[in-house]
């Protein structure tokens, strides 16, 4: 660790404790408290990444998580900022976007030779002809595009993140001096305050400077005052008063009544040829590296600046032990006399009225070329001279971090005097404090924060008259300190340097100043168009490093003022965030029936069916199907939705919801019902059993359970009938015992008389079966004699086991969803959503008998169905058979003269009937028994015979017997 500076009191690292991790397979030693970036820089690894388009080497620039230069992959997670990510023992860090290695990247060719081929928008212009080569182009482009690689396995890409919601009186975004002062004042006045900051430690710009100790004290005092501090937690955006912040594995969603934006400002880079070389760093970045991590940013520095910030920085760097070879100040006249004097005393030469023209070096800066600037900031070629250095610390002024404010509806106004944007038209529930408010110099940031904090708290009705008076006084003194022109030396003058060579305006997307010129020449002369065309400001830095530069250049190129050029729309996310964090915990709730374990034990092939895990089959679809026909079968139908509708007006309620009658259903009897909406469309179906005079047991489809409950309760709210609705779906299990021998099996397990005379088709009875209280519904979804047994979930396993045990002598088999599908298709029992779609109505879906227009009620769907009845059905759902056993694909087209006129909704081979059967929508004219239709299925033309009656037991003799 030769690149470390002597210890300093501000450093975050613990030199007594070393931690090891790996970078591209090499072992790297770090100190506890290091970031990945600081440790790598200290170890001599100055190149951390390759750039997006040209694959140029890039190194640390901002050291504050603001720029794109240090994105690495950590343990398979791409896009991690090395400069802020703390080192942890054993992590595997790898570079991104360079092949085969960071040192030698073949794609660098795009930089060295590709210039004429990769202008802005090249992907709109090239790789187009000849068209037949597109598959090849696509492969190449897709390989080249993007940053980083996602882990291949799903499990390696998952984030275990949680959402957390937090209500607060006041939310402060930004933990610098202004933010902390605001939080402290608001909390002192009794407000519940949350403060979030993207850094690990509160203090912002103070931490790397002389005020580091007072930052620590302030941080302690706000915690003591009860402020909840979220750090490091980057605010992602402003969503109508909700501010999400990402902290580790938590996505905080903070909703506060008042917001204080203390988001600070961002130091801007300078534009010159090679301004992206490793070794070119922001002044603040170089200082942070030296001060917080004790890492030597370079041996010999040249500081290039347009403001006094650079002068301060030169002094700070020299004090830290870095030789400063000179300060290149673009200003000929301005500049604090005090600082200039200090620089002179320190023996640092200041080149006033000069700018950096070029930084040279292959993979790292070896020196700069500087030149005198004329009045318009253009370099004089005759004055060019070189200065050797391995660090160029740059400071091109600051850009206030206004994004969150703009997202909240504020505007940013260009202020010529300060050479900066100032927030304007800020919504009334937001206060602005510190640098983002233009309250520079820094010595009034604390006061600015205290005023904002007091305003926020007092506007919530907190505080006393005394506090109001104090606010008035503070406000007045703040106004005095910030009034008038900005202090000399803070204002940013025009950019220095030349536009020759590769001057990067946007580091994320590799957009040079020439690219911007070129785009403007091509007519993309509004900022929003320029952004979309060149992708400037659209990369990981979200404009932090490039927005101002692109605006200034557009202003210079077009002659429009900065105000006229305007700003692009600020959008979330303000900080980069993995999609997985926004998505929250990977959450796929699986519903399992009470006897799910049994399905596993019986060898069931368990699959997803909506939210449910269900047995598709138990290994032999044919045998299971035939068992239901010849002996008995048992299927778990616990997934059905189950509602109890009770009350004096329950019958009237169902009469309004369903197209058929329920008020005249006798207690203990069952009727099939199809639910629809007022457009007449089928939405769900199920059976309804009248339990007694005042209550009905309604079953729904498995996937429709929630929607039906919601639909019922909505109409109940509208009609205000004397009806109670109880959803018992989760509490009850249900099994369908079906097959010719099901009666024998059931009779042996219950005292109930199960004879056909006593327990007829469509009877519903309550009785104990093996001691389990059951509601037994004699219905026939699968087309054989059958009983649906509904029982309390906790007793279901006992019932299931007993049925299988008793059924063993009768050749019972459990059967799964697939056999059930074949069985129900033989009966032409529709599956809502499979055989019907959002346009199907019962008149056309082969169920005209279910619509009782003679009912008095204006039931849901009546009017629309009346219109259909009047017009006549256009299409009909019919059955078809195919003798030769071909099973057309579900969804295949029914064609007439080669034109599609309908489609197949269900199709299966029936082992019982030994032919293919199916259902299809066809024009009404074709919906006659015996008509031959043609199904076009992936090139095959298949003839099928239309059949309108059920394929199996059309007269219901088996069901009723």
């Amino acid at each position: 660790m030769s690149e470390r500076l002597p210890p300093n009191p501000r450093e975050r690292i613990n030199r007594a404790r070393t931690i090891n991790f790996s970078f591209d397979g090499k072992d790297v030693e770090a100190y506890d408290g290091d970031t990945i970036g600081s440790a790598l820089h200290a170890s001599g690894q100055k190149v951390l990444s390759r750039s997006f388009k040209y694959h140029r080497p890039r190194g640390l620039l901002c050291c504050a998580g603001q720029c794109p230069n240090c994105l690495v992959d950590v343990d398979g997670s791409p896009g991690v900022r090395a400069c802020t990510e703390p080192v942890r023992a054993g992590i595997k860090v790898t570079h991104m976007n360079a092949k085969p290695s960071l040192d030698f990247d073949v794609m660098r060719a795009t930089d060295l030779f590709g210039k004429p081929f990769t202008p802005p928008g090249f992907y709109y212009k090239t790789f187009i002809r000849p068209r037949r080569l597109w598959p090849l182009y696509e492969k190449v482009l897709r390989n080249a595009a993007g940053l980083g690689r996602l882990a291949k396995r799903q499990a390696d890409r998952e984030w275990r993140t949680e959402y957390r919601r937090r209500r607060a009186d006041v939310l402060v975004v930004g933990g610098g001096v202004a933010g902390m002062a605001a939080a402290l004042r608001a909390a002192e006045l009794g407000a519940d305050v949350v403060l979030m900051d993207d850094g690990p430690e509160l203090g912002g710009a103070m931490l790397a400077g002389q005020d580091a100790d007072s930052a620590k004290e302030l941080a302690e005092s706000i915690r003591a005052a009860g402020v909840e501090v979220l750090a490091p937690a980057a605010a992602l955006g402003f969503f109508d008063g909700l501010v999400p912040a990402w902290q580790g594995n938590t996505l905080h969603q903070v909703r506060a009544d008042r917001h204080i934006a203390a988001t600070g400002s961002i130091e801007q880079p300078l534009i010159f040829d090679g301004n992206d070389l490793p070794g070119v760093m922001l002044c603040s970045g170089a200082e942070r590296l030296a001060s917080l991590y004790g890492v030597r940013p370079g041996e010999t520095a040249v500081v290039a600046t347009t403001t006094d910030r650079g002068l301060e920085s030169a002094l700070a760097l020299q004090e830290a032990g870095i030789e400063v070879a000179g300060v290149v100040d673009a200003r000929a006249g301005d500049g604090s006399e005090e600082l200039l004097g200090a620089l002179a005393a320190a023996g640092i030469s200041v080149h006033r009225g000069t700018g950096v023209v070029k930084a040279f070096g292959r993979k790292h800066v070896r020196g700069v070329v500087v030149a005198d600037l004329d009045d318009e900031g253009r370099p004089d070629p005759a004055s060019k001279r070189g200065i050797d250095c391995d660090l160029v610390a740059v400071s091109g002024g600051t850009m206030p971090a206004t994004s969150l404010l703009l997202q909240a509806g504020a505007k940013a106004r260009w202020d010529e005097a300060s050479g900066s944007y100032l927030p304007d038209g800020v919504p009334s529930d937001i206060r602005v404090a510190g640098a983002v408010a233009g309250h520079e110099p820094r010595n009034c940031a604390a006061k600015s924060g205290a005023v904002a904090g007091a305003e926020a708290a007092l506007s919530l009705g907190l505080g006393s008259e005394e506090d109001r008076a104090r606010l008035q006084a503070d406000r007045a003194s703040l106004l005095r300190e910030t009034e008038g022109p900005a202090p000399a030396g803070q204002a940013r003058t025009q950019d220095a340097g030349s536009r020759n060579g590769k001057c990067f305006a946007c580091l994320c997307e590799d957009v040079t100043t020439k690219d911007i010129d070129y785009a403007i020449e091509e007519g993309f002369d509004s900022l929003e168009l320029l952004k979309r065309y060149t992708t400037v400001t659209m990369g990981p830095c979200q404009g932090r490093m490039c927005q101002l530069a692109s605006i200034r250049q557009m202003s210079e190129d077009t002659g429009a003022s900065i105000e006229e050029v305007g700003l692009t729309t600020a959008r979330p996310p303000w900080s980069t965030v993995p999609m997985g964090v926004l998505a929250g915990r990977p959450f796929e709730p699986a519903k399992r029936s009470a006897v799910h374990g049994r399905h596993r034990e019986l060898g069931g092939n368990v699959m997803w069916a909506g939210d449910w895990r269900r047995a598709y089959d138990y290994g032999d679809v044919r045998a299971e199907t035939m068992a239901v026909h010849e002996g008995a079968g048992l299927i778990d139908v616990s997934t059905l939705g189950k509602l109890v509708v009770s009350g004096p007006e329950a019958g009237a309620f169902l009469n309004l919801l369903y197209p058929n009658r329920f008020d005249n259903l006798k207690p203990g009897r069952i009727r099939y019902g199809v639910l629809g909406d007022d457009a007449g469309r089928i939405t769900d179906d199920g059976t309804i059993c009248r339990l007694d005079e005042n209550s009905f047991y309604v079953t729904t489809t498995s996937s429709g359970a929630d929607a039906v409950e919601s639909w019922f309760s909505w109409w109940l709210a509208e009609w205000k009938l004397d009806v109670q609705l109880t959803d018992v779906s989760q509490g009850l299990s249900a099994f369908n015992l079906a097959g010719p021998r099901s009666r024998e099996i059931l009779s042996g397990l219950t005292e109930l008389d199960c004879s056909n005379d006593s327990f007829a088709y469509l009877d519903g009875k309550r009785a104990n079966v093996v001691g389990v209280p059951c509601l037994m519904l004699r219905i026939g979804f699968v087309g054989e004699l059958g009983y649906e047994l509904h029982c309390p979930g906790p007793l279901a396993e006992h019932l299931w086991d007993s049925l299988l045990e008793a059924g063993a002598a009768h050749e019972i088999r459990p059967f799964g969803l697939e056999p059930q599908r074949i069985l129900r298709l033989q009966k032409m029992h529709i599956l809502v959503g499979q055989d019907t779609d959002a346009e199907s109505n019962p008149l056309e879906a082969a169920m005209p008998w279910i619509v009782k227009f003679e009912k008095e009620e204006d039931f849901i769907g009546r009017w629309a169905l009346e219109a259909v009845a009047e017009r006549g059905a256009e299409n009909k759902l019919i059955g078809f058979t195919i003798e030769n056993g071909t099973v057309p694909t579900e969804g295949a087209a029914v064609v007439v003269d080669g034109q599609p006129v309908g489609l197949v909704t269900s199709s299966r081979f029936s082992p019982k009937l030994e032919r293919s059967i199916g259902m299809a929508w066809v024009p009404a004219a074709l919906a006659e028994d015996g008509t031959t239709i043609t199904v076009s299925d992936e090139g095959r033309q298949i003839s099928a015979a239309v059949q309108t009656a059920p394929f199996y037991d059309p007269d219901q003799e088996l069901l009723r017997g």
Partner: protein
Amino acid sequence: MSFLLTCPNCGEREVTDFAFGGEVVPRPSSKPSERELNTYNYFRRNVAGLQREWWNHRSGCRAWFLAERDTTTNEVRWVALPGA
């Protein structure tokens, strides 16, 4: 979109707790003409401003209730159980 909504049963909650039921469209009280039926089924006023609408506290008590909301600001003027 993000705002707070007050369930008449449960109190103030994030809007993501609720299911939106659309603007209140009264069902015709007697047989409508085909045009009226289609208007009822398919047309919505979609106002920019105050709108009376249905909400369901889906992740809470599951009650349906009415709210009057300004669609431009998401300010909710009042909420009420139907008939209350």
